[in-house]
């Protein structure tokens, strides 16, 4: 049996951490795109559309991400689709992220005072014009800190993709442990890896929040 040096462990974890980063980016960018569409539909759409979006958000917020991953991977297989771990993880995390971002952003749009809608309305702006020129620019400023904050949850959520065989940071840790039987060392490094990814984002979110609310919204 080959011996693993600490450097071997770290090197392998670093290589696997790439896929944690890539999967997080896919989930976040995909989730943001879907989430934006959902937010607009939920704010302005017809009543049945709003109702559907709400159901979607409730469904993904009310079930564990782990189950969503299982369903995307094994469920698709049962239905006859041959999906890779990559596809399943990307789809499940994108949908999960979109549901949370939709809810965060709806809150930000609703946080813009109703007087702004009224002012836009009496000046003759229609719904889309009001959204574009008056409401969204203000909602966007409110949305940045919680959105950055949520991206931390997405990164940590990718760890669950390990259970469907997606080799990212956590899965690599498990595999290394099976070979070396040094769980304490390995999972300390794994945890450290997540911390290095997440901590700067948390700090940045906090900084944005202070800057936004401390200075008052101009």
């Amino acid at each position: 049996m080959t011996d693993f040096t600490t450097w071997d462990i770290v090197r392998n974890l670093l290589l696997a951490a790439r896929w944690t980063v890539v999967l997080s980016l896919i989930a976040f960018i995909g989730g943001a795109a879907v989430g934006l569409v959902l937010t607009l539909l939920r704010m302005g759409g017809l009543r049945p559309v709003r109702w559907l979006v709400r159901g979607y958000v409730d469904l993904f917020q009310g079930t564990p991400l782990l189950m969503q991953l299982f369903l995307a991977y094994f469920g698709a297989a049962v239905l006859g689709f041959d999906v890779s771990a990559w596809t399943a993880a990307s789809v499940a995390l994108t949908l999960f992220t979109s549901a949370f971002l939709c809810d965060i952003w709806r809150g930000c749009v609703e946080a813009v005072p109703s007087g702004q809608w009224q002012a836009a309305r009496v000046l003759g702006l229609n719904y889309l014009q009001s959204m574009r020129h008056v409401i969204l620019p203000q909602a966007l400023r409110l949305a940045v800190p919680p959105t950055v904050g949520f991206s931390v949850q997405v990164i940590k959520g990718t760890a669950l993709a390990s259970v469907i065989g997606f080799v990212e940071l956590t899965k690599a840790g498990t595999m290394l442990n099976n070979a070396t039987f040094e769980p304490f060392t390995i999972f300390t490094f794994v945890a450290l890896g997540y911390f290095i990814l997440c901590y700067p984002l948390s700090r940045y979110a906090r900084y944005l929040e202070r800057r936004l609310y401390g200075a008052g919204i101009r």
Partner: protein
Amino acid sequence: MALVSVKDLHKSFGELEVLKGIDLEVEAGEVVAIIGRSGSGKSTFLRCLNQLEHHDWGTIQLADQRLDGTSMTPGELSQNVGMVFQSFNLFPHKSVIDNVMLAPVVVKQTPKSEARRIAEEVLAKVGMSDKIDSYPAQLSGGQQQRVAIARALAMNPKVLLCDEATSALDPELVGEVLRVLEDLAKEGMTLILVTHEMKFARDVSHRVVFMHQGRIHESGPPETLFTRPQTPELAQFIASVV
């Protein structure tokens, strides 16, 4: 033909009937002050006039056009009726000039250079020429309200509605806003104001309307109304505010 003609206007919020049949005609160039206790329906009436609230019953005619929620788009309506709010409602993320230019550019599709010229003109009229690049948060309440008036004027409306335009202001800032409104009145702008400034209602308006419990209880020239109220309700109201 009156510029604004309201007949038998009714509006309820759920069980609560706020307007119980309002009749009012306003001529072009007329300044009408609406007074009354809070809860008497003044603000709701004003908000029906620009369709921020849709009335349940009765008619509103605006320069030949009947308002029923669908006859005019918000864009067309805004070129007929302007509105100034108690809380200013300036757009905090836009500079003064951008606040004023937004509707002409977006709604009327006025070219930017032309919109800027109009904006500078109306801002000069309210005495805010030196603050065009400031943001609302950098202005006093009185200055913000003057910008809000300019913003409404930029759409060149036929009538300007003011919903307690000075109620949110510190006492020393009320005067500058009232002076702007007075100037507009002198220029022949049609104004319908809900106000608690009795002196202003008395000095500037052509007609005072006293609303009580969802109806127009009494109306007439300010001198008559304030010195010889016909009903005990109005007499009591005047006694309580003067």
